[in-house]
């Protein structure tokens, strides 16, 4: 069975293939990350999305390639900057984790 890290990479690649203009994709670990029931969470900086704040969207598992539930949070570049400054916040227990993709020049 793939790990959460592998699933995160698979989803990130699929999302980039569908939307090559995505500027950045980072993992969002939660404080229950070690539990299989805790979803794989991605934060995507997408210039094409609307500036609507933090709107996490949930997806069910899709085994065998995606055996975990997943969550995607799409933000604009400005919203990502506000997240980094602490002016916007993720849901309780979630944090900005390792970067899976960063567009050249970003």
């Amino acid at each position, binding site marked *: 069975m793939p790990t959460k890290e592998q699933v995160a990479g698979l989803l990130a690649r699929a999302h980039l293939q569908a939307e090559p203009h995505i500027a950045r994709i980072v993992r969002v670990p939660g404080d229950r990350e070690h539990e299989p029931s805790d979803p794989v969470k991605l934060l995507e900086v997408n210039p094409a999305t609307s500036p609507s704040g933090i709107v996490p*969207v*949930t997806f069910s598992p899709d085994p065998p390639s995606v055996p975990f*539930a997943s969550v995607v949070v799409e933000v604009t570049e400005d919203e990502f900057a506000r997240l980094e400054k602490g002016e916007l916040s993720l849901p309780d227990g979630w944090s900005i984790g390792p970067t899976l993709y960063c567009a050249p020049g970003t």
Partner: protein
Amino acid sequence: MESWSRAFAARARSDLAACDLLAGTALPACHRLHYLQMWLEKLCKAYLWRPESAEKDLRARHNVVGKVLPQLVREHWRRVGFTQCPDLDAIRRICREIDLLHPQVDDDGRRPDNVEYPWRKPDGSVACPAGERFALAARVQGHTGLLLMKAAKRPTDSPATFTG
């Protein structure tokens, strides 16, 4: 007990049924578009991560189709194995227009046109939705619109909702 997510999904299915029913009538386009907007808004809300504190926000919020539906479409395409994804930017533009059908979403007054209530036009006259032609009615029947409708019907018919 029904979860919020499943309840929104059930209402989305019902709105879709009404939308399809209206499509076969000669009623003005605003009625079908009204149910189209309600269907897709409820569908999107069924997929939102919902901490308990957000219940009120979930009911009151209307501007979600443009933010959420393109992600549902993208995930649907990934699951069915599309290797050459259609133009998601065009999908996003249609989704934004669907949000604007709601009277409370008007781009700071720049887009008062909506499918429910009369509005004042720039020339001072008052428009009635039932008497207006909506360009979106044709766009949702074009190639991109049909791709969007097809992708949205799948998660409506068999929603992958979470149980929060």
